[in-house]
């Protein structure tokens, strides 16, 4: 599929959640499936079939690239989740990681690739890969990201500020690992990559600093994403860009410059207003508040239906290409799975005149 195919899907009124997690957690052994590429591929395909979409969107597991990187650095498995760098470990880390990349195998990344191979080889679905974005990986890698990023916004250089050195070094390292993951997924048959960058948001990057002239979006987000984008373009692979964080219009405009086929945003955004910020050949995706679907008080079924009607109606009025969906991946919550599933079915099926 290329850009015109995505625009066509939008024109046909496609609706779809990012729903693999829901289907996965209906299986008796979800954790085993996450490590079994063939079965994971079947789950991804089943989610696409259930929600009547040609797009095979995988699990949104944003822990894979951090785990893979730290494995390459011989961090013990049980320390990976909580491991953080407090200072820049030195430039030789690039060589250490580069030496391990050609042969390193992360079990969940291998399963993701095998799942892509399954989708590409056994279904007519569009196989899509999934990676975390560089800034979002950075904030998982360093101990105090917000303070360090604020120092960047104050104009400190790497030479004068160790936290800024840490940010710049880790962003470079993160980008290399993400590119490595992307290469593997492209080699497995991915025809688009879903890049998740939730940290590129006001939680980490101060809109006040940006308004004051700090080039945070360029320096910390776009510069690295353009490298990913160039690689995807070379491979004729499309970009789906996702950020469900809190944003200001400057963020949305910046993301659009990466020319994704789909721009997926969180429920804090009014997509009908964002339509004016995004070129007409970029499909806007989202952004029903699926994180609250578990709660019947905050988000009753009738509200889901009303929001669906409002979103579709308002987006039609803008004339902007749009696919109705979830604000993020729809997570299965223990004890609330059926409630969530019912609301997803509701937005898939509610009639809008």
């Amino acid at each position, binding site marked *: 599929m290329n850009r015109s195919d995505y625009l066509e899907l939008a024109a046909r009124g496609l609706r779809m959640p990012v729903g693999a997690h829901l289907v996965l957690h209906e299986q008796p052994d979800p954790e085993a499936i996450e490590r079994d590429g063939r079965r994971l591929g079947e789950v991804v395909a089943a989610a696409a079939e259930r929600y009547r979409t040609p797009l095979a969107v995988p699990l949104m597991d944003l822990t894979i690239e951090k785990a893979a990187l730290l494995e390459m650095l011989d961090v013990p498995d049980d320390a990976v*989740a*909580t491991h953080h760098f407090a200072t820049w470990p030195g430039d030789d880390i690039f060589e250490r990681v580069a030496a391990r990349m050609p042969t390193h195998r992360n079990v969940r990344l291998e399963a993701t690739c095998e799942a892509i191979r399954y989708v590409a080889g056994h279904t007519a679905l569009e196989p899509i890969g999934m990676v975390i974005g560089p800034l979002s990986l950075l904030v998982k890698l360093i101990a105090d990201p*917000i*303070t360090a*990023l*604020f120092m960047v*916004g104050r104009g400190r250089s790497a030479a004068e500020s160790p936290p800024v050195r840490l940010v710049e070094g880790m962003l470079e390292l993160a980008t290399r690992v993400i590119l490595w993951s992307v290469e593997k997924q492209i080699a497995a048959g991915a025809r688009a990559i879903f890049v998740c960058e939730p940290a590129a948001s*006001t*939680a*980490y*990057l*101060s*809109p*006040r*600093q940006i308004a004051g002239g700090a080039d945070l979006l360029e320096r910390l987000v776009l510069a690295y994403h353009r490298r990913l984008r160039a690689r995807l373009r070379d491979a004729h692979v499309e970009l789906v860009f996702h950020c469900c964080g809190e944003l200001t219009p400057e963020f949305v405009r910046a993301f659009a410059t990466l020319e994704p086929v789909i721009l997926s945003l969180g429920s804090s955004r009014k997509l009908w207003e964002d339509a004016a910020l995004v070129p007409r050949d970029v499909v806007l995706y989202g952004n029903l508040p699926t*994180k*609250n679907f*578990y*709660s*019947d*008080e*905050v988000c009753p079924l009738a509200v889901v239906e009303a929001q669906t009607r409002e979103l579709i109606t308002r987006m039609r009025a803008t004339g902007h290409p749009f696919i109705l969906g979830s604000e993020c991946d729809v*997570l*299965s*919550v*223990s*004890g*609330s799975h059926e409630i969530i599933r019912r609301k997803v079915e509701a937005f898939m099926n509610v009639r809008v005149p």
Partner: protein
Amino acid sequence: MSVLEQIAQAVIDGDEVSTPKLVEQALVAGTSAKAVLQDGLLKGMTEVGRRFREGEYFVPEVLIAAEAMKAGTNLLKPHLAKAGVKPEATAIIGTVRGDLHDIGKNLVATMLEGAGFEVIDLGVDVPPEKFVEVCLSRKVDVVAMSALLTTTMPMMEQSVKKLKAEVQPTPTIIVGGAPVTQEYADKIGANGYGRDAATGAELAKSLVINKR
């Protein structure tokens, strides 16, 4: 501008260099440690909380202000101890087991400090047993729990149950995080729900400090 006002302003500006210098200056001039804390550092942090609540400040500004306040507080601590000034109450805070998100939790910790609490940060991925263990080992007035994921929220319920079963009297329990709601807080038996960091801290203060 008085030196106390300058301290408050330095916190508001997130100036971690000037804040301790001004604290030092105030102490040398004979200002009491309690006044420096209450009318300088905490006053500045209260203003930061207001600006955050009203959308003027964002997360980074709050955390940078907290760094500035911490730089001042560190200098102040021996003076406060010497003067017998104790925190108004003690809160422990953590992101529940299975959840590694810490921004919201850190914000609430910052706001609680700004509201006059001594805060013990248990970090992320905190099991129910840890909340109980700390409550049994020292006097705790407030237990604050955070969860960002819908998938980890049920761990809040387990933590609340364990605290109520094993810690008597049970401290005030407040919960928060993106997917958490008042309905959920009520359902699991928490004493309060903070829809954002500033209101969470205000709630804790109203439930504990203001009731005294």
